[in-house]
């Protein structure tokens, strides 16, 4: 076990060091780079803490999509050196921050050792009733389905806000033969892995969110390469895409009401099938939402072809 203590200390030190670098590096570009590295080390931390679902999500969303998004926005942001806050203010806020951190650390350490509470025991006892054998999926789509439904609503409102904030960021559009070839290999494989993750989510780490994020990263590849050989996606079908997940979720949630049961209380024998149905629709919508989040605005009518910068030599 000695070796694990060493690894734990190394991981924690790396997380803190990368966080500090991402917060205090002089140039914004450096901070973004450090943030991406931070996200990847955090993904390793989730794997170490036996949370493979989170490791997948963090690597795709936390480091990948957020990193790509931040890199894209760098062009719009100027470093904008503002006058620093007064000395007293800085000392004061640092002192308050120190007190906050120390207090939080003490509270956190007083919580140990941690034992399973009633909800956790209930999850492990009633796992069979959920229709899936992977506990995280059972919690997400059955026991705490309300949370997930509302999360989709949050995502939808963010996507709608972005849709109304103007056109998408321009891609740098290196439509060279190399990136075209890469997209040809990556996009079909990403779609395949999304399907795999979705299916696997019922009994192993994976599920709608990871699968949707993988699909969104396929869209990122398409956007970055300005891929031409793709059917056009109009705004109307985009809206449909965004709505199919939440709508189906609500519809399936309403069905048990006819039997006099509670909202989202699926019948036990149908639960597995219903969860797969909801997850499939949710995956598509999540992919659309995350793509919009990445694009930062509504895509052009001819996305992604219009986004290739006409000034760039092909």
């Amino acid at each position: 076990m000695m070796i694990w203590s060493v690894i734990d200390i190394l991981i924690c030190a790396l997380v803190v060091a990368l966080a500090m670098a991402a917060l205090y590096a002089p140039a914004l570009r450096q901070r973004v780079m450090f943030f991406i590295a931070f996200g990847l080390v955090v993904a390793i931390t989730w794997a170490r803490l036996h949370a493979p679902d989170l490791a997948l999500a963090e690597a795709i969303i936390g480091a990948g999509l957020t990193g790509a998004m931040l890199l894209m926005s760098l062009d719009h942001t100027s470093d904008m050196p503002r006058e620093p806050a007064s000395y007293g203010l800085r000392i004061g806020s640092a002192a308050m921050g120190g007190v906050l951190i120390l207090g939080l650390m003490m509270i956190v350490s007083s919580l140990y050792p941690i034992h399973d509470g009633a909800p956790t025991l209930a999850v492990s006892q009633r796992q069979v009733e959920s229709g899936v054998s992977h506990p995280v999926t059972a919690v997400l789509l059955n026991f705490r389905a309300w949370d997930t439904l509302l999360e989709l609503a949050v995502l939808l409102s963010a996507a709608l806000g972005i849709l109304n904030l103007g056109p998408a960021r321009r891609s740098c559009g290196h439509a060279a033969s190399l990136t075209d070839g890469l997209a040809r290999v990556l996009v079909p494989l990403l779609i395949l892995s999304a399907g795999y993750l979705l299916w696997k989510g019922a009994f192993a780490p994976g599920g709608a969110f990871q699968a949707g994020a993988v699909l969104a990263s396929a869209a990122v590849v398409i956007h970055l390469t300005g891929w031409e050989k793709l059917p056009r996606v109009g705004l109307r079908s985009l809206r449909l895409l965004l709505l199919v997940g939440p709508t189906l979720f609500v519809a399936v949630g309403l069905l048990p009401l006819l039997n006099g049961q509670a909202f989202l209380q699926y019948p036990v024998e149908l639960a597995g099938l219903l969860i797969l149905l909801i997850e499939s629709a949710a995956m598509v919508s999540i992919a659309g939402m995350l793509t919009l989040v990445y694009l930062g605005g509504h895509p052009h009518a001819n996305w992604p072809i219009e986004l290739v910068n006409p000034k760039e030599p092909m």
Partner: protein
Amino acid sequence: MNSLSELLSVAIVLLAVLVFVAGTVALIRLPDVLSRLHAISKIDNLGFGLLVLGLILIQPAWIDGVKLFGIWILVLVSSAATGQLIARHAVREEPR
């Protein structure tokens, strides 16, 4: 478990670690973008390849070995492509 394959696996993984360390040192020490790219592509191809080979040897199910091999191929493809892109960008920026 076959102890011979375990031993071989440990040896190959250690070799991979050696490549990773050497590559990281090179990444820090080398002066310009192109030679750093050279270092990092060695890590991706050789270091990661050895790591995958070492892990394939101790997989209980052969399908897991196939998956690991697939991951290596994907890393190869993407590292080759991104390496080219970064190098092209670096060369284009240089005359300024």
